[in-house]
């Protein structure tokens, strides 16, 4: 197992390195000059030039890549062109919104999806099953940003239960923030929950066909007991993968949701930074997101091993 982890870590680092190159090249070819952007319609050329040199934009590409990488390794992501503050500060602020939002959404979708999946699996073909899975189908089909708009319309404008958007900041108190994150979390969670529920259902059905369930029944366990004691843990294995994927998806996928609820999250920051050509921010964030994805997949694999002893010796399936 230890050797396995080591191997994975190595490929993880490799992936990241390649990723940074890809990102950097991509950023390089993005047209549009941050300095010119900041100078606006009436900006004089020499002022722009001055700004360029101030931002260190007229270094060679290679040098910039190296300094970027070495900087990141040291934890220094450079200074935002537009905000003029350390990128790392920016990112930490935004992460403190995006990550909680993501986790919130994931928790929501999980607590919705798992029971739904199990129930409709055990009621397979029954009315409840058809109903729930029908709902899930619709859930998958709804674009989350549209759903978000509808929710704003309903809860903020009509009912005025939640404030329309914005984020008070954690010093304003946990509950306040939770409240601010609720609508966004729901609009993120719903489609994910729908997907998750479908996966859960099919994997439960799969498991219920296994021989060891029959063995358990022969021991005298009722269908339900067999499912709970032997089915669930095995059924959760595929669900883990989806959860992993969803976490990384939500982390970056919040862009539109964040702007609809005007949340100061990573997604919005990166979107805005692309528009403002604050490229140093863009590449750092994208790198971090890639890192997140890679790490999460890694963690999920470790979780597999935790759930499934067959993998503890590093046997891959």
């Amino acid at each position: 197992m230890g050797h396995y982890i080591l191997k994975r870590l190595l490929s993880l680092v490799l992936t990241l390195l390649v990723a940074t190159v890809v990102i950097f090249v991509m950023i390089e070819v993005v047209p549009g000059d941050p300095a010119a952007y900041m100078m606006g319609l009436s900006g004089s050329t020499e002022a722009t030039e001055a700004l360029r040199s101030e931002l260190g934009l007229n270094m060679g590409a290679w040098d910039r890549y190296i300094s970027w990488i070495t900087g990141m390794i040291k934890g220094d992501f450079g200074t935002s062109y537009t905000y003029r503050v350390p990128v790392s500060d920016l990112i930490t602020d935004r992460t403190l919104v995006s990550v909680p939002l993501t986790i919130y959404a994931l928790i929501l979708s999980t607590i919705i999806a798992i029971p739904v999946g199990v129930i409709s699996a055990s009621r397979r073909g029954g009315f409840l099953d058809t109903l729930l899975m029908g709902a899930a189908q619709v859930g998958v089909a709804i674009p989350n940003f549209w759903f978000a708009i509808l929710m704003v319309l309903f809860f903020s404008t009509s009912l005025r239960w939640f404030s329309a958007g914005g984020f008070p900041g954690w010093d304003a108190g946990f509950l306040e923030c939770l409240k601010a994150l609720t609508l966004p979390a729901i609009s993120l969670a719903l489609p994910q929950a729908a997907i998750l529920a479908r996966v859960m259902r099919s994997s439960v059905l799969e498991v219920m066909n296994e021989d060891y369930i029959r063995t358990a029944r022969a021991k005298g366990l009722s269908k339900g007991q067999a499912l709970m004691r032997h089915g669930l843990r095995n059924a959760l294995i595929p669900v883990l993968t989806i959860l992993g994927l969803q976490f990384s998806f939500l982390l970056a996928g919040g862009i539109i949701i964040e702007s609809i609820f005007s949340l100061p999250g990573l997604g919005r920051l990166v979107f805005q930074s692309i528009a403002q050509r604050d490229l140093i921010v863009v590449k750092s964030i994208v790198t971090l997101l890639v890192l997140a994805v890679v790490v999460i997949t890694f963690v999920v694999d470790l979780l597999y091993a935790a759930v499934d002893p067959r993998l503890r010796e590093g046997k891959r399936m």
Partner: protein
Amino acid sequence: MKLPLNFIIGAILTTIFLCMALLSLVWTPYDVTALEIADKFQAPNIDHWFGTDHFGRDVFSMIMIGARNAVMVSLVAVGIGMLFGVPLGLYAAAARMNGGNLIDEILMRGNDLIFAFPSLLMAIMITAVFGPGAINAIIAIGIFNIPVFARMTRGGALGLWSREYIMAARVCGKGSMRISFEHILPNIANILIVQATIQFSIAIIAEASLSYVGLGTQPPDPSLGRMLNEAQTMIFFAPWLAFVPGGAIVTMVLGLNLMGDGLRDILDPKLRQRKAREMEASNAAS
């Protein structure tokens, strides 16, 4: 054989939209490029089934064309995904089966790399680099379809390579490429078809998202996503402008997903095998 209900419903919905899309090529109730400010914000009525927008355009016509654009973009995007992904997957599997683990590793790591990038974000980047527009939206979405199909193909292929009929073919001295296309591809075709429908629906949502942020199909061509975006601020006095395109997207995707599920029930060999297993279990010793 009796078709499952979800397939029937899905097929119907999908055909409706496809017909609308095709019809829009030759005819729409109104010309969506002609702006008539005079009759803007008309609520749904006999003349304008889904009302008119802030430029006085007929929403129904826009939906028709918007659906067409969505379908077009998604189709090509998924097409790209299959065109590159499937051979890649076949090749990787064949390579692994013939001791070329390294090639396989590299290809799959490459896949993981693409997977590791946040797709919507990358799409935005790509469109930021090459400028917004349908073509670039297609590319952006297509790229992220490649690894999906590559993985699926490889997985299915690996499963088959250990089958005895593949060995039989190899005993007959057939090369791995020949085997891939003669024996393997036909036998994974069905799962690929199913996946294609799923990806198709995902692509439609992706296209909607992209044009919602203004990076998809460009005006004056209507696109469902941008219609939603424009409708946002008018939702309070012209709600239909938001509900209609949204509903259109949902029904479209719903249709495709239902059809995909139906197809899976019909085609998916895994499921059929399990059915077979249950059957055997019920009337045979093994």
